């Protein structure tokens, strides 16, 4: 990987540089096609997933984790598809696959374990907030939360020197991380992450909330999703699931908080529910790294 950060990087240049390196597993398109096909059967969909043995094992582990808490064992992908839902399982598969796609970031630049822990925690908190609000397809929130900082990975890979500078500067000063990015580059990791997902043709309901998770008021089509990720991200920081130590906690957007309409005392319940799931999910998904 060559560092092109000597030239002024743009979002496009960064994505262009990385999307060939980090590609979505081919099977994902086929899975999507099956799910949307009027003549598909559960068995067809199941077959596509089962082609990836590692993915299948991790999905079944997730299906049996406290994330779902089904009362008996889910021992087949077909059963998982039935109980969790096809679109929902597809979204889980997406999260798992993407996670496996980024691997070669030097650990002195970024600790992958804590990076993913922060993102998984954000995914689970987002999903818990969606569950509390009885949203349809809560797995979508999980994926969006889990991939919200993917832009950082992309930037670490494409412009490692710039990122190093930004990280150092952040550690020394008291500027918010994404503000440092803005100051340095004129854009932040949210924009980069969503640009990559768009390139991968991931639905807008996942990519838009990621783009605006630090500025949720700007989300146009999926403001509620953006608001949810925004809140979950801040909760992660306060709960100690930060990327690195001494990470400054981003401010909560008040308009967004009011739009979500969650009683403060419910936050405690949401956090308690999520904490159990975070540890277990991290354990299952870390195997992919």
């Amino acid at each position, binding site marked *: 990987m060559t560092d092109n950060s000597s030239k002024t990087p743009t979002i496009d240049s960064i994505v262009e540089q990385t999307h060939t390196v980090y590609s979505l597993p081919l099977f994902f398109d086929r899975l999507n096609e099956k*799910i*949307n096909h009027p003549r598909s059967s*559960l068995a067809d969909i199941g077959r596509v997933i089962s082609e990836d043995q590692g993915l299948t094992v991790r999905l079944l582990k997730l299906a049996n984790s406290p994330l779902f808490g*089904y009362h008996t064992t889910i021992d087949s992908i077909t059963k998982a598809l039935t*109980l969790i839902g*096809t*679109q929902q399982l597809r979204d889980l598969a997406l999260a798992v696959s993407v996670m496996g796609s980024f691997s070669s970031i030097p650990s002195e630049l970024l600790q992958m374990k804590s990076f993913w822990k922060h993102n998984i925690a954000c995914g689970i908190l987002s999903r818990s907030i969606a569950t509390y609000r009885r*949203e*349809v397809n809560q797995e979508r929130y999980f994926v969006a939360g889990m991939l919200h900082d993917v832009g950082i990975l992309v930037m670490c890979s494409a412009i490692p020197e710039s990122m190093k500078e930004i990280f150092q500067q952040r550690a020394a000063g008291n500027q918010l991380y994404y503000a440092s990015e803005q100051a340095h580059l004129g854009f932040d990791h949210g924009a980069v992450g969503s640009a990559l997902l768009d390139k991968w043709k991931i639905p807008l309901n996942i990519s838009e909330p990621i783009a605006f998770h630090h500025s949720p008021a700007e989300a146009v089509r999926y403001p509620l999703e953006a608001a949810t990720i925004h809140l979950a991200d801040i909760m992660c920081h306060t709960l100690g699931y930060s990327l690195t130590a001494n990470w400054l906690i981003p401010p909560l957007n008040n308009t967004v908080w009011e739009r979500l309409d969650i009683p403060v005392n419910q936050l405690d319940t949401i956090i308690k529910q999520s904490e159990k799931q975070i540890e277990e999910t991290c354990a299952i998904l870390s195997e992919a790294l």
Partner: protein
Amino acid sequence: MKPEGRAYSELELSLLERNSYLEEANRQYVSLLDTLATSGEFQNNLGEAGADKEVFEATLSEIRKVVPLKAVGCLESMDDGSFNLVVCYPPDSCAVLSSVVERTIMDGTFSWALNRSQTMITPSGNGGAVMLHAIATRKRIRGMLIGIMPENIEYLDASLQDVLTIILYTAAYALESMAYQSLLRTNLSLLEERVSERTKELQSAMEMAEAANQAKSEFLATMSHEIRTPMNGVIGMTGMLLDTELTKEQREYVEIVRKSGENLLGLINAILDFSKVEAGKLDIELLDFDLITTLEDTTELLEHQAADAGLQLKCLIAPDVPHYLKGDPGRLRQVIINLVGNAIKFTHEGEVTVSTSLVSTDGGFAVIRFEIKDSGIGIPDDRRAIIFNPFIQADGTTSRKYGGTGLGLAICKHLAELMGGEIGCFSEPGQGSTFWFTVRLELLTSPKLTPEVSDKTAAGEQNFASLSGFRILLAEDNIINQKVAQSILGKIGCRADVVANGLEAVRALELIDYAIVLMDCQMPDMDGFVATGVIRDPASKVRNHSVPIIAMTANAMKGDREKCLEAGMDDYLAKPVKKDELAKALLKWLTAGDSAKVPQQEEKGAPPDASLLFDKADLLSRMDDDQDFVRMILDESMEELPKQLAELRELCRGTDVKAIRSLSHAMKGLAANISTTALYDIAGKVESAAKDGVLESIRELLPELERTFELTIEAIK
């Protein structure tokens, strides 16, 4: 297009396959979007649904449009956490669906599906896969959709699943809004119930308060009666005591007793009147009366009182105030007497003026305003608003200084309102007060009042003397009527004891031998008819069962007289009672009655007509029988009178009322001088007509004056 002569390559086949997939998918999307876009009927059905069941039915038919299902049904979530199958399609599938529900509940898929707002299809070994979808809003689970998939179909594509979710979400919100509506209705009816309950409580509280007030009024009325009966005894016996031989000192003491008794009785009567106001029993009589006369009589009555207090009482009547009205002169007098009484009470020097004016006339009614203005102590601003409330006086401390019950103005207010008017006052402390009130009375086009002319002459003043000394009992419940009757009786030299009802009358007659009873017919507790019955009943304790009883009644109707006579009364007087009629009746019954009750006085009998025209005997006796002097006076008068008559005739053609008045006054004086009563009377009438400024009445009187003049001249000659 199939390439000529060769088989499809693998790539071509896969592209064809992909093309057909995209076409199919596109068709599916278009059709589903169309279903959603044309869901107007569904929305309408939901909106019109009157019950949950109708919402479920509409939902079911909408679902069936989108998904082919072997059987489908809706379960409603009940308050106790259970689920009821409310609708199924086809109708005979209920049993099957119920058993499927049982099964999914047992294996946990039902509760799993409840918590996931998405379509869940569980494959089954036989009888088709089962589809479950919760019907829930963000807040609450409202029900569950359950369906049995057709054979071999265990999957619905993503877009179809999303459409199902949309339909059921809509249904859930329709159910929720219905639940809120019914909650609202329940609350509303609860509220209505509360309001009506509270209204009932208030009603009963009000009834209790009214009953208590009624009881108070009745108590007051009873107490007043109870107190009054012995008071009547005290006053009556004091009167008898005064007729006996007493030393000067004793007479003084007894007079004080009598005066105090009468004052006390007055207070009790005010309380009784007020309790009638409270009980709504105060009524207004409708009589034809002459307002001007009533006013003059009333002020005359009050003049003494004012004079005693060192004040001047003025009575101003605007010229356009009508004479003849239909109303209750007694009650009118009561208000005026009360207000003037107050004015006199609170004025230490200066004058009290009673002004009467006409406010308006319309539709045969006249609104008349009375103003009683004094130069007294006045009323402070803050008290002025409440002085018309019962038991209130302008100054709590004044009741000690000035006395009174504090009921007078409350009664006046009620009376003024009963007479269709209002009452009010304006005042400045230290500058005096003006109390005003209005009444609305029917105008009489022509006076139906009996002319007093002929009667007046029937009982000459001198004859009243023959009535003095008789003890008269007056039974009359209206205070003012009592006062008026007493005043008239006083003028003709009689003294009357007053009782307020039949029962008191009977009691009084048990104590004292009255010479005659004046009996009002309508009285509370015991009316005049019943009382007469008791008096005439030989078994009663009344001392004289044959005492003459003269009825006084407001119902001036035919048959009343008969009714009175039938009841055992001796004569009948129509109210309002006039002095001369009363005198005539008294004369008739007192002088013609049992000699035992007639005081030892010479009976004169009615004077002949001739003596009215010219009473020579009277003239001679006044002139000490100086025949020459009499002749001289007569000659002079015979010369003067025709001149005056001619001048009067002349004046009547003009409008100088003042001149007429002074001329008629002169003529009246001349007539009196020579004992020509008839001429005196007619000249007096002309004078009073002139005083009123009514030129027409003067002209009407002229022929009578001429005729009387002729007759008088003849009589003298």
